[in-house]
């Protein structure tokens, strides 16, 4: 099996599938817009694409080995209830044919109740409920549950709610080596955030708002060779987090941040790179050097992927054209190393996909068989109403 990373075209949102070379698959976030499920709408039908990429188990259930939710915002979890099986795996119904999540990867935010400052959409609530169900199973039995009941918590809860379940908790700065209980060295994940609670109260306040975004730097095996691809995925983490990460890691562990592929945080938002307001200050807004350093540890040929809508200089943030320019400067000023998922859809009508082989990381190309008919204009006759029989000389 060829390892790969697929970025689905979901506008301003994240939905990324990582396939390991042992054929295990981990989905990072989900953003299925209502229109994407509508056949007559042009919004990319990402669920059909995803389902085609998944395998079925012996019981006929489509599954992902892992599902990492970076944080419970709508643009990272939409579509969960409609497309994924929640509840005990034995309740899976053939007629619904939903996707089984063998193992959840969740931040400890699921232990927090929603409040004014912490509102949750229905899909996020469903995620939290399912996560708590799985945690309760572990708490009850004290052993790792079976597939479909498993969960790993990414980071400790600041109120100590994970203290009694450390067997399923990965602490920040530690590595994740197992996916669905299989430790095959097909990958290693370094958990960089959520950041543990610090002592400085000012910083704490600043961090509190989006502390819950999980940041993992994956090291992925390709064609049997370790560490062929480093992939940094940080949800919607903002400038304070990246600044703090650089302060913590910059001196001795900067290599924990280096990457071949960076998913630009928060859909290429300016707020991951700067404390200044883009809308108010425009070009006067300044980049936070520490945050830029945290996001700038490139390996040779590294690329930045913006999972966002098409970036327009006049548009609001995110995505932000100024941020795009900053990322381009990070990748040696090479415009072709900054890729917006929406542009790929625009040009190729497909998700952005990289294969990870022993040779390295290569963008895949649309297969001719599928492309030929469309490119040749076969069926184009039907694409619009055409006048016939007019004698006015137009051809």
């Amino acid at each position, binding site marked *: 099996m060829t390892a790969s990373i697929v970025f689905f075209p979901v506008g301003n949102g994240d939905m990324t599938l990582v396939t390991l070379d042992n054929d295990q698959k981990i989905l990072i976030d989900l953003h299925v817009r209502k229109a994407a499920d509508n056949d007559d709408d042009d919004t990319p039908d990402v669920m059909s694409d995803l389902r085609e990429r998944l395998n079925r188990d012996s019981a006929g259930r489509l599954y992902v080995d892992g599902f990492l939710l970076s944080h419970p915002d709508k643009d990272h979890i939409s579509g969960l209830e409609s497309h994924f099986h929640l509840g005990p795996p034995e309740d899976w119904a053939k007629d619904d044919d939903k996707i089984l999540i063998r193992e959840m990867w969740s931040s400890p935010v699921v232990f927090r109740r929603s409040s004014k400052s912490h509102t949750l959409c229905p899909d996020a609530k469903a995620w939290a409920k399912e996560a708590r169900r799985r945690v309760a199973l572990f708490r009850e039995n004290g052993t790792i549950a079976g597939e479909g009941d498993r969960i790993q918590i990414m980071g400790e809860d600041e109120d100590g709610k994970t203290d009694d379940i450390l067997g399923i908790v990965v602490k920040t700065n530690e590595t994740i080596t197992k996916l669905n209980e299989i430790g095959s060295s097909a990958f290693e994940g370094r958990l960089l955030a959520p950041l543990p609670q610090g002592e400085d109260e000012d910083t704490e306040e600043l961090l509190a708002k989006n502390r819950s975004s999980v940041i993992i730097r994956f090291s992925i095996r390709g064609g049997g060779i370790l560490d062929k691809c480093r992939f940094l995925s940080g949800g919607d983490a903002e400038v304070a987090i990246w600044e703090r990460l650089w302060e913590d890691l910059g001196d001795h562990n900067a290599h924990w941040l280096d990457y071949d592929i960076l998913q630009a945080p928060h859909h290429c938002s300016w707020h991951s790179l700067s404390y200044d307001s883009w809308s108010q200050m425009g070009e006067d807004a300044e980049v936070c050097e520490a945050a830029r350093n945290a996001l700038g540890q490139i390996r040779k040929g590294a690329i930045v992927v913006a999972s966002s809508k098409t970036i327009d200089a006049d548009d609001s943030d995110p995505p932000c054209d100024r941020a795009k320019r900053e990322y381009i400067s990070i990748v040696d000023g090479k415009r072709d190393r900054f890729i917006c998922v929406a542009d790929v859809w625009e040009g*190729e009508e497909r998700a952005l996909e990289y294969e990870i082989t022993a040779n390295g990381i*290569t963008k895949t190309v649309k297969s*001719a068989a599928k492309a030929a008919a469309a490119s040749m204009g076969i069926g184009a006759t039907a694409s619009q109403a055409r006048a016939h029989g007019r004698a006015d000389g137009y051809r």
Partner: protein
Amino acid sequence: MATDDKASAADHVLRVALKHSECVGGEVLELEHGLERVRIDMNVEMPLDMKADNVSSSGVRTCESVVLKLPASWPWQSPRFYLRDDFPRHFPHLMPFSTPPRPCLIDGDQDEFFLQFGLVDYGVFHLVDQLAVWLRKAAINDLIDPEQGWEPMLRRDYRDIVELDAEHARSLVDRKGGWAVWKGKYYRRGDPSGLLGVDAEAWLSSDGERTPLKTSEGDDTFTASPMRGDMRVGNTVVAIIWPDKNSDGSAFVHSIYVPEDVKTLGHLRARAEEIGCARGLDAFLSNLERSFAGFVLPAPIPVSVILCARRPVHLIGTESDIELLPYVIDVRAEHGRQTLFVQGNNEPVSPAAHYQSISAPLLRSLSGSPDQPPLVMLGCGSVGSKLALHAARSGQDIVCVSDKSGLRPHNMARHALGPSHVPSSKAEALAKELEGFGLRPEVHKGDLGKDLREQKLAKTLLPKCAGAVINSTASLSVREALVDAAPARYRARLFEAALFGRGRGAFLLADGPRHNPNHADLMAEMYATIDGTPASKLLFDPAEGLAEIRIGQGCGSLTMQMSDARLSAMTASLALELSELLAAPVNDGMIVMGAMDVGTPATSWVRYQVPPFETVEIAGTDGWELRISKRVADRIRAEAASYSAVETGGVMIGCTSARLKTVTVVDLLDAPPDSQRSVALFVLGTQGLHAAIEARHEASGRTLFDVGTWHSHLHDTGPSGTDWNTAAELAAERTPPSILLIATPTSFHALMHTKEPD
């Protein structure tokens, strides 16, 4: 075609190419030699780290310009693709010598690939796509796919040919390294002073016979005939050279793909050095030089050198990792020469194509057949000859062919051999034909019915090495003689193949382990079970049936109307079944039966598996044996068991052979209603029995009849006085043998009254 249309072809191709997602630019170029040209710029996806350098580790750029030339016969031929002049050369699938370099985009004929698309647009688009894939693979040097195997150097367009058995050559290769010289023959066409591969060409062949390298008076290792037209023939040698081991003792593996570019002896030495064959090549060349010492033969004699390169993975299409690299060098033993190679390292050398000579492995790989044990063909008539050629073409050995008759003109209607073989003996003619496939079968021209029973001849006819003996004579006497001649310990499987019903029906019999069931058993079983099937209609039809079964070697075929196509169709199917049974032998005997529909060639085939027959020695005889079909034996036991308190019985149906001294039972008739069953006696009634026997006889195509009776004993006791008396009565009433079978709870006993009881 109008000039305007011509002019637009290049535009059209460019427009189509630009539709491809990887084609990012291009332009129509000026005509070259009157042919249209287009340049297209291809984006090449490659790993991110190489992309950063704009060039891959193998030297392919992220954007490659490729020139497409439209041939004069466009659109009947596809565009030719040319890469930039300095495109790296170290790839397979790159045409050797072509300047500028040309990629091999298609595994096969590019024009055929192109023409399969009705729309020219589609064809161009797919070729551009092949180019995109080719470039992407070249970028990561992935054109050799270890799964698929090592891509051998492209040599198919060379004019010089070396024909030999590659497997034989590869079998010489060992880990240590070395060289060997084989006898060869050559044809050399063209100017005697001309350059091989340019204005002369040579075809060398060798059947792999080793020869010492020496030239002395009267020695004919090297000869040259006078010129006939522009051609000369003669004897030469082929040197096989394989790599020396590494200094650490491991096998020398050459894993860098290089295109074939040898043009001189210097190049050849360099190539030999690369692949570990330098010592062998030097040794061969100096021995060649020495062998010509004092010998003058001014005509050029092409000598072949085969370098064996060991690759890291198997070659595409074979299991071997040894790639053969053949070259041809003209040797000119002139008067007063210093050396055979006066130009030294500049002596021209021509790379040659290798043609595989006919060999069993070649035939097996082409036909996808497994390696199967040798065959004996008893009968070389139309069916036998076709089965034999099917087998030979699948690379199967045939060790003996037998037929007593000669090929006559009328045989030409259906025999596998053509008129040039008339009027030789069928067996001899077939053996001669098989020689061309490298087979050397023993020829037997005697009467099989007689000779199989002679121990000396039976050793030839049933050799130990054979895996299968195929009787296609359709002769009853041969069938019985074969059953008689094959002892249980003879390991080859015996088969009988025949057609009937004007070729609309066919059967194949395969006997069981230790020849039980034998062919006679299987025929009886067939008659007993075939009733009601389409084949039975053909088999029992008085006009088309068994009377005409003698298609194999008798004269029956003279009058039978049947096309060669129909005979071939049925025989080909029999051949398929035969190889199926040889590849996956069943533990029982087997009857395969085919019947062709009326009006269409649709044929249905059925297989019946027949377990070994149970055998009982018949008391009161000189070695007669009762052979009971398992099916029938089980019925007898079941019925005896169902009458636990009284004796019961019935009539046995089957056939007998006086020559084999066997009585074969394949069916039962129930005891008539007026039969009497008691504790110590079973009396077979008569009511309706005669009519039932008659009806059974008819239903079996008048082949099966009553061969005796059976009855049960409640205890394990043998024949009683009553039984012997009944046997005597039966014998008095009719001439065919009549058996009494007694089924006791644990065993069978059989007896028969003969005139002089023991």
